[in-house]
C-alpha cells in the first residue's frame, strides 16, 4: 500500500459508499439513475457542498463553526434587503459580510481563546437576532434579485450552473488544501497547534482565515439556497448545521483536525443527498430517514477511525506479512 493510497483511503471509501448507495437506488427504481434525478441530486448536494466548504476548512484546522446555519440564512435575507444595489453587487456584498462574520469568529477563537463551539454559537445567536430584527423592521416585498434565482436555477447545456460552480469551488478548495501554502498550514495547525507554532506558522492568522472563508462560503450558500427556493426565511439554514458537519465527517475528515480533504466532503455531501433521496423509495418516513442518517454517521466515523484501521491492517497483513502493528503512532519509545 503506497503512502498516497493510505492518505486517500478515507476519501476513496466515502466515494465508494456514495457509488454503492446510488447503485442500490438505481437497481431498486429505474428512475433513480435518470438524468433528471441526477441533476436534482447534484443541485441539492451542491447546497450541502457550499455550506460544508467552510466547515471543512475550519474542522481541518482543528475548530468547528456552529454559526454556519445562521450565516446561510443571513446570505439570503440580507440579499433580499439589498436588492436595490443590484444582484451581482448584492451577492458580493453579502459574501463579504459573511467573511466579516467569520472574522469575528476567528478573532474570538484565535486571539481571545474562546472555545470554537462557544464562540461560533454566540456569534450565530447574534446573527440570528439581527435577522429577526431586520425581518420585523423592514417587511417590504423581500424579493430576491434575479441574479440569485438565475444562479440557482439555470442550466448550461443541461447541467445546472450551481453544479458547475460547485465543481469550480471544489477544484479551488481542493487545490488550496493540496497546493497552497495556506492549505499546508491549515493541516499543520489542525494536526498540532504546538508543532505548527514551533515551526513558525502564524497559528492565529491561519485560524482567522479559515473562519473567514467559512463565513464567506456559508453566506454564498445562503444566496444559492434561497435563490433555488425562491424566497427567504429565518430557518432556511437550520438543516445545514447537521448536514455540513456530517458531510465533512462522512467524507473521512477527523473532527480533531489535520486529516481530511474537500473532495471527501464532496463525496460526503453526495452520499447524504443520495441517501436522503433513496430512503423514501424504500418507504421510509422522514423519521426513519433521521435514524438511518444517524446510523450512517456513526458507522462511517467508526469505520474511518478504529474499524477502518483494523480492516486495512487485516488486508495489509494478508498481502504481505508486514510486521508493523497499527497504532505505532501513539506509542512513545520508552
Amino acid at each position, binding site marked *: 500500500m503506497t503512502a498516497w493510497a493510505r492518505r486517500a483511503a478515507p476519501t476513496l471509501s466515502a466515494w465508494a459508499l456514495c457509488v454503492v448507495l446510488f447503485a442500490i437506488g438505481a437497481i431498486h427504481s429505474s428512475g433513480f439513475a435518470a438524468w433528471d434525478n441526477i441533476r436534482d441530486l447534484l443541485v441539492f448536494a451542491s447546497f450541502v457542498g457550499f455550506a460544508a466548504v467552510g466547515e471543512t476548512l475550519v474542522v481541518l484546522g482543528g475548530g468547528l463553526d456552529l454559526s454556519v446555519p445562521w450565516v446561510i440564512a443571513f446570505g439570503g435575507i440580507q440579499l433580499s434587503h439589498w436588492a436595490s444595489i443590484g444582484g451581482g453587487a448584492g451577492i458580493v456584498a453579502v459574501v463579504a459580510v459573511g467573511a466579516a462574520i467569520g472574522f469575528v469568529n476567528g478573532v474570538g477563537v484565535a486571539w481571545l481563546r474562546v472555545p470554537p463551539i462557544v464562540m461560533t454559537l454566540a456569534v450565530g445567536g447574534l446573527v440570528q437576532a439581527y435577522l429577526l430584527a431586520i425581518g420585523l423592521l423592514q417587511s417590504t416585498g423581500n424579493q430576491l434579485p434575479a441574479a440569485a434565482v438565475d444562479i440557482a436555477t439555470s442550466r448550461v447545456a443541461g447541467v445546472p450552473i450551481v453544479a458547475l460552480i460547485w465543481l469550480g469551488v471544489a477544484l479551488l478548495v481542493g487545490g488550496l488544501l493540496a497546493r497552497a501554502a495556506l492549505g*499546508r498550514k491549515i493541516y499543520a495547525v489542525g494536526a498540532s497547534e504546538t508543532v505548527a*507554532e514551533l*515551526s*513558525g506558522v502564524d497559528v492565529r492568522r491561519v485560524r482567522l482565515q479559515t473562519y473567514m472563508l467559512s463565513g464567506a462560503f456559508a453566506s454564498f450558500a445562503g444566496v444559492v439556497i434561497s435563490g433555488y427556493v425562491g424566497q427567504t426565511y429565518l430557518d432556511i439554514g437550520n438543516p445545514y448545521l447537521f448536514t455540513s458537519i456530517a458531510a465533512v465527517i462522512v467524507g473521512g475528515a477527523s473532527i480533531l483536525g489535520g486529516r481530511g480533504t474537500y473532495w471527501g466532503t464532496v463525496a460526503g455531501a453526495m452520499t447524504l443527498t443520495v441517501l436522503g433521496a433513496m430512503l423514501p423509495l424504500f418507504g421510509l418516513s422522514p423519521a426513519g430517514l433521521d435514524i438511518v442518517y444517524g446510523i450512517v454517521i456513526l458507522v462511517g466515523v467508526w469505520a474511518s477511525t478504529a474499524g477502518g484501521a483494523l480492516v486495512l491492517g487485516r488486508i495489509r497483513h494478508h498481502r504481505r506479512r508486514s510486521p508493523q502493528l497499527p*497504532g505505532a503512532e501513539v*506509542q512513545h*519509545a520508552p
Partner: protein
Amino acid sequence: MTNMLRIAGLAKRYGSVRALEGANVEAAAGEIHAILGENGAGKSTMIKILAGVTPADAGEVTLDGTRLALGRPARADRAGVRTAFQELSTVPGLTVAESLLFRREPSLALGFVRRRELNRHASELLSRLGLAHIDVRARIDELGLGERQLLEVAKALRDPARVLVLDEPTSALSTEDSAWVLGQARRAADAGAVVLFITHRLAEVRAAADRLTVLRGGVDVLTGATEDFGDDELIAAMLGRRIERLYAERTAPRSDAVLVVRGLRVGGRVGPLDLDARAGEILGIGGLQGQGQRDLLMALGGARRWLDGSAELNGAPFHPLSPREALRRRVALVPEDRQREGLLLGHSVQANVTLAALAQFVRHGVLDVRKETLAARSVVARVGLAEQRLPDAANTLSGGNQQKVVLAKALLSDPLVLLLYDCTRGVDVGTKAEIFALMAELASAGATILYYSSDLSELVHMCDRVAVMVEGRIRSVLESDELSEQAILRVALAEAEHYRSAPA
C-alpha cells in the same frame, strides 16, 4: 529463598520499538534495589508493567513464588505493588486529601465520603511521614512540582507495600527532600517491602541501594551488591561498548560572537542569564534535568515570553516574540519532545521537513511542489535519511529517523543559530553518531549551536564550552581543560555531594 521478587523474561514492544527483551530482576524483601540504565534502556516500561499500566508481552513477575496478577492499575494495587510515578499520578483537580486517599476514602453507605474523616486521615498520614506542612485541603494544581513529587511518594506509602516502586522520585526535589525520600525508602524496606529504586543519580544509589541491576537495550546486563561496583563499571555497563568514533572531529570555533544574551529572565524561576556564543561554536547547556535549560532554549527560539533581558544576534538586537520571528532571524529550535512538539505525526516526512520553510517554495500563495520536493530530498540526504521515506507518514519512522526529520526541518531554514534540546534522547547509537557528525559539520561551516543533553559524555565530547545550569541560573561555564563529566557533575550536584558520605 523466601520473600523474593522475581521479574523473569519480561518483554514488551511498542510497534517496531522493542522496549524490553527478556529482562530479569531479583530483589529480596528488606532490600533497596536500584535499577539503573540510560534513557530508553527499558526502565520505564518495566515500571509500567509492574504498576499494571501496560501488560507485558511475555515474562512474569512473582513474589514469594506466586505469580502477581498485574495488567491493570487496580490489580497491581491489590497485589500490593505501590508505585510512585515519575510522571506523577496525583490528579490536578482534586485536593491533596482526595488524591492521597483516592479509592481509599472513608465512606458511609451509598458512597458518601466522610470529608472530615478524609481530611483527618490524610493529615495523619502526612504527619506520620513528616510532611505535615502540606495542607490537605489545597488543590493539587496549586502545589509546586516538588510538593507534588513528595505527595507522589507519600501516596505510595499510604498502605503497607509488598513491592514499593520509586521511579526517579527525586528529580524535582531539593537536597533535604531527596534525603527524606531515601529515608522513607529505607523505612519501607525495613518494614519488609521490596523497594525498587529508579534513579539517574549514582550518588543516591550509593547512599541508599543495597543491590542494583543495570538495564541496557531492554535486558539486564549487570546485577549485584552496590559496593561491588565502582562508578566507572556501572557507567560502562549502562553505556555498553562505545562504537568507534561516536563523536565527530571538531574544528575550533571562530572568535566572533554571534549571540550575546544579557540578563535574560524567563518565567518565575529562570534567570537572569548571560550568555555569549561564537560562530562555529557548540555551546553545551548542562546540569541536572529541569534546571531551566528548556526555558532558556525555548526563549531563544521565541517560544517563551522574555520577562526581562536583551540579546544581540550578529550585532543587531534580537528579541523574538514567536518562533516565526526567531526563524526569520535564522534561529531554529529543535524542541524536547519530537512526538508532541516536533512532528506532525500523521503527515508525510516531506510535509514535516518543509513546514518551517514553506515561504521558500511559495509564489503567489501557491506551492511549487517540485521545488519543495527537491529541497526536501537534499535536506533529508544531509541528515542521512533515505529520500524514499519522504512520502511516508512520520509516525511510521523509528525514533532515530523521526529525530532526523525534526533536524532536517530546522536545517531547511538555514540556521545561524541552532538550538538543540536533548536531540539524541531515545535515539540509537548509529543515529547519534550521524547527528554528531552533522553538528560538527554545521559548526565548522560557521553555525552556532546551543546544545542541551541529559548525557554528560555527549556534552564533554561535542562541546567547546559547557554552561552548567543550577536552579535557573548558569552556575559555571567550563571550557577546554576543565571540561569533563566529573566537573560538570560537580558543579551540577554541588549541594548533593554529601550523599556520598551518608552511610548506605
